[in-house]
Every structure is written in structure tokens, then in C-alpha cells.
């Protein structure tokens, strides 16, 4: 198994951890997260609220709240971000990463015309002149599907619907030709048909502009068929990571399996009783020792409660998960990632 070098990767996070100090002691929100993102790849980061997905994005982007202690290594397009000071990091990321946030109502400045909002980034980071920036903005509005782009350039955000506003946000994010586009719950507030339009648009733009993309969502359905890999977070830990199809067809971590079983499906018969997950999400202030999902896991054993399961890797190295009692029953399918752990490759 060859590990791509940092230069080839768009994003490389290694053992990223983050914690807050609070009056009642430190609270760790991210535990030892490692992920890599190759060029022209789409990654879905999924998890429920409190799992740490937004926190992960904010940590990578340096947008985390003040007073957060971050350890670990982040590099983007070969450049090490962890060693940069805030100002340099912002300069660097502004041009390399575009972000689209959840609420289009509040992400756009209601008092500024949208044309100018799109230009802002290109004028600041790319140092474009007025005319060039305007041309670029109109072009971007066209490519995100805003009709009559030249007219709409002068409009204010309130003149557009939620879906249109989100398209404008995407145009803003693309202004600097970023290598990475991050959509953080970008479609959660939208109607389902509008959501499809936005997701289609993101997919088209990603392949046309040869960017990498991260889709952060709590809705597993969104990442199906649109991403190459997915990363499942639970309680601030990575519990499963692998090619999207493989993870959906063959989820190994008990949480992933439970989550998939809990979702109502349109192809299920009516009145099917959903398989629920007992218990409640973990409390970051009082983390359980061992696997974060153990308190709720139907298959948990003794060691699940006492020690954190190591990452186990499937045969070709692409699918990894942190579980002592994973779902699959094909023992030859995987081997442990860290040979130092005594558990070895049983079951």
C-alpha cells in the first residue's frame, strides 16, 4: 500500500485533536483525527450533531473559537498550516479554499449587492482590477445557474430565494479558483428539489474545475452517489472511513450500521418499525473510556468499554474502521493497522 506524499494531497490531517478549556476542566471535541484528500476527489464527512464535523472543518480552516487548543498536523496543498500564524493562514486559505455555509439567509450581507460580494474575494486575494473582477463575477453567476447574470449582479440578496442565495454563495466561494470546496450542511435548510439542484451543481463544478470537495452533512443520503469517500464521525472520533459504495454496502462499524438502519427509506414498506439506537450521544465533558459508541452498542464486549479500538484496515487499505466487534464476518477481509496492538486480526 503506497501512501501518497503530502505534495500530491489537497488536504492532509494527521492526528488532529482539539480541546477547550472550560470552568469544569478541558473538553476534548476532536480526538486524533487523520484524513487525506486527493485532488479531484469528493469526501463526505457525516455524523450527527455533536459528532464534531463542523468543529473539524473549523479547526482545519482556523475558524475555531478562541481559546481552543489544537494539536496535530494539517497541511493543505503541501503547505503546513499548523505552523502558520492566524493572519498568514487566513491569507493562504482564502485563496485556496472556498466555503459554503448552511444558512444562506445569514451568510450573505443583506446590505451589499451580490455582485460586489462575489468580487470581494477575487479583488483581495487575486488582486483583480474592477473590470476584471466584475467580468469574473458575472461569469460565475452564470456558471452557478443564476439567470440574467448581468442584471442580477446589481441585485440585493433579499431579491433571491433560498436556493438562489445558496448558488450565489457557491459563486462567492469559487471566486478565487480554490483547490478545495467545503460545503458545510449547505443544503440542510433547503427544499428537497432545490437541494438536488444544489448538489448537482456542486458535482458539476467539482469536475469541471477539477477541485476537491468536502460535503459535511448529517444526512447520509446526500453523500451517496455524490462522493468518492466518506468519513463517519462519532463523539469526535473517526469511526469509519472508506469508499462511499463500500461503506454503504458493507458498513463495518456498529455505529454506521445502526445509523443506516435507523433511517426511514422510501423503498421500505409503510409502517416499518425503524431500528433505533438506544441511549444518547456522548457527552464531551464526560467521555466514556474506550470506544465512544460502546455505551449504546448492541454488540459491545468488555474491552470495548475499557480501551479505544485501533483502526483496522480492509484488504486493499481503502476502508478502515475502529471497532473490536465489526459487522462483517469475513476474517480474511482485513488486518489491523497498528501491529503494536495485541488484538491482532481475529474475527
Amino acid at each position, binding site marked *: 500500500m503506497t501512501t501518497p506524499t503530502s505534495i500530491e494531497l489537497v488536504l492532509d490531517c494527521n492526528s488532529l485533536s482539539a480541546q477547550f478549556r472550560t470552568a469544569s476542566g478541558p473538553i476534548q471535541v476532536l480526538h486524533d483525527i487523520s484524513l487525506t484528500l486527493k485532488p479531484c476527489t469528493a469526501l463526505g464527512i457525516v455524523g450527527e450533531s455533536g459528532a464534531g464535523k463542523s468543529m473539524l472543518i473549523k479547526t482545519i480552516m482556523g475558524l475555531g473559537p478562541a481559546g481552543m487548543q489544537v494539536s496535530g498536523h494539517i497541511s493543505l496543498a503541501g503547505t503546513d498550516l499548523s505552523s502558520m500564524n492566524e493572519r498568514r493562514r487566513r491569507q493562504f486559505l482564502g485563496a485556496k479554499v472556498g466555503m459554503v455555509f448552511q444558512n444562506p439567509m445569514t451568510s450573505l450581507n443583506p446590505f451589499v449587492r451580490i455582485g460586489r460580494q462575489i468580487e470581494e474575494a477575487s479583488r483581495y486575494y487575486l488582486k483583480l482590477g474592477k473590470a476584471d473582477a466584475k467580468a469574473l463575477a458575472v461569469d460565475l453567476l452564470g456558471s452557478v445557474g443564476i439567470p440574467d447574470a448581468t442584471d442580477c449582479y446589481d441585485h440585493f440578496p433579499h431579491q433571491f430565494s433560498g436556493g438562489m442565495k445558496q448558488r450565489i454563495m457557491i459563486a462567492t466561494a469559487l471566486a478565487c479558483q480554490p483547490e478545495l470546496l467545503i460545503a458545510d450542511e449547505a443544503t440542510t435548510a433547503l427544499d428537497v428539489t432545490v437541494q438536488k439542484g444544489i448538489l448537482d451543481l456542486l458535482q458539476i463544478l467539482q469536475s469541471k474545475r477539477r477541485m476537491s470537495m468536502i460535503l459535511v452533512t448529517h444526512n447520509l443520503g446526500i453523500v451517496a452517489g455524490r462522493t468518492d469517500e466518506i468519513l463517519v464521525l462519532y463523539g469526535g472520533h473517526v469511526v469509519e472511513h472508506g469508499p462511499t459504495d463500500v461503506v454503504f454496502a458493507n458498513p463495518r462499524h456498529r455505529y454506521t450500521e445502526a445509523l443506516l438502519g435507523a433511517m426511514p427509506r422510501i423503498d421500505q414498506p409503510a409502517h416499518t418499525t425503524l431500528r*433505533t439506537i438506544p441511549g444518547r450521544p456522548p457527552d464531551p465533558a464526560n467521555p466514556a473510556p474506550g470506544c465512544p459508541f460502546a455505551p449504546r452498542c448492541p454488540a459491545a464486549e468488555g474491552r470495548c468499554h475499557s480501551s479505544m479500538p485501533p483502526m483496522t484496515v480492509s484488504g486493499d487499505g481503502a476502508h478502515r474502521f475502529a471497532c473490536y466487534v465489526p459487522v462483517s464476518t469475513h476474517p480474511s477481509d482485513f488486518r489491523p493497522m497498528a501491529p503494536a496492538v495485541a488484538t491482532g486480526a481475529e474475527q
Partner: protein
Amino acid sequence: MSEPTNTAPNAEFEASLQDDALVQVRRLSISYQRNGKEFRAVDNVSFDLAAGETLGLVGESGSGKTTIGRAILRLLPVADTSMWGSVIYDGIDVAALSKPALRGIRRRLQMIFQDPVSSFNPRRKVPDIVGEGLEIQGIGKAERTELINAALDDVGMSRSLVEGRRPHQFSGGQCQRIAIARALAVGPELIVCDEPVASLDVSVQAHIINLLQDIRETRNLALIFISHDLAVVRNVSDKVAVLYMGKLVEIGPNDALNQHPAHPYTRILLDAVPVAQARQKIVPSADAAQIPSRMMPPSGCRFRSRCPKAQQHCVDVEPELRATPHGQFVACHFPNNQ
């Protein structure tokens, strides 16, 4: 405001409606006055609901689904709102009731909201919240306490857990349980659920959906389940009604709509629902759907501006609801599979 002129008489559909259903909505139209302009939120909607049945009301924003739910409970604002048609509950015309009489039937019709936390008075303690309906009905303290505890029990929360606590001390899922307990405490026959799981995580959502199924069965409740999430509606409903821009475009048994959707909009909705399963890479479509303005709906069939099958006839004539071979009614000149 102007009385709506019924361009689509829907004779066939209306003939199919029952006269003895628990809830009978007939030709319901509701208009709001906003900034001097009239906005028709609901236009000529009719349907039935039998006792113990669940109706899923599906639609996107602007479809009128929430307005219908509120109209059934007579919770629409009085100012600047006009309503035509009728809502008949157990033979009683809800819209025509006097205020005291309306209060009398309130306990039979309850509502659960999308954001449970905002439906609670933040200064009240949870047991008082659950017992509010009982207090209003004038039930004595001892009996109230019993009913509150029973309702909390039914939703899986113990009295000791909520004693002395306020809503902000609980999670979203727990708050929704409290809201359900509040609705159950008064012993209703119908509960209107307005997007009850939209703001909840998947695992919590599953609990609440199962809970609603349980209590529905044990108490033979009729439910009107309003949602934009078709997968959830598929799971909970016996009957589904699809709304578009205030109009009823398709209505019928859950299976019929799911397996043989007749209206192009229903098709589009079903296609757009994200499904969490291994699949081929989606082929994205580059057209941005042009959603017409709510204030100026298209003439004839309102859906024609987004419809792949639209023809001149669709511009001129508004379609009527007609029966399909699979048992649903669809308002379309060129429905699928016909």
C-alpha cells in the same frame, strides 16, 4: 379579498369523499393579505381522514401544508386572513364554532410543532407544560398529576426526570417527547404533526417516529403528518397528499403514490429524495429549476413551468383531480402511466 373562482370543479374527486369521515376538508382556500397584496396559500383543497388513519401532507415551502394543518385546528391568525370552504370534524363545522364551543372541542384536536423548544413557554417547568391543557380544561390537581405522569410514561420519560426542570435543560429529542406528552395528556382523537422530526438527528428521529406509531396504535389516533421528507412520510402514512403552490396535485394510498406516482411533481420529489445506499454515481443535471413566484402562480396548471411534459393545454386549462387505475387521484392532463 376575492372569493376564489373554482376553475377546477373536481367533481369526480369530490364524489369519492366520504360523508362520515372523522375529518372532512372541503374546498378549503386560505388567503393572506401581505403588504397590500393577496397571497393564496391554499387553493381548493379537499380530503378525508378516517379515525385511526394517518395522512401524510407532503410539499415544499409555499405548498400550503402548514397552513392547512393550522386551519384544521383553527389556529390561523384572524387579522388579514380569509378562509373559504369548510373543515368538518366529527360532523362539527370547526370554522363556524363560537369561541367557547371551540374551546370545548380543543382537547380532541392537538398539535405537535417542528421546533418543540419554541412551542414551550421558556419560563414554565416541564410538568406544568405537560399539564397545561388539563389545567385549562379545569381538571383538578390530583387527577391532573395522574394524567401527566401517564402521558410522560407513554413517551418514555419519567416524572422524576422532568420534575422542577425547564425546557432548555433537555435535548431536542426529549423536548419533542415532552411535546407529544403534552398533546396526549388531554386524550385527543387527532394530532396534527407539523414537521415533528425535521430538526432532529437521524437516531433521535427514529425514536420519535416509532413512538408516534406506538401511540397511534394504542390510542387509535388519527394523524395528519406534515413533512417535506418523503422517506419519513412513506414510513408513517396510510394515505398521502401532495401539495404544490397551494393546490392538491395528487392524493391516494401510500403504496400507490410510492410505486406508481402519477403526477410529474410527485415523480420529481421521489427522485430528489437522497437515499443512503450504495449506488452509481449520480448524473447531475445542469438546469436550475425555475421556481415561480408564489404571488403570481402560472395560469392553468401551476406546475407547468417546471414540468417536462407541459403543453399548450396545460397553460390554458387547470387540471381536475381524476382517478387513476391504482387508486389515487391526480390533477394532471398527462399523468404518468395513463
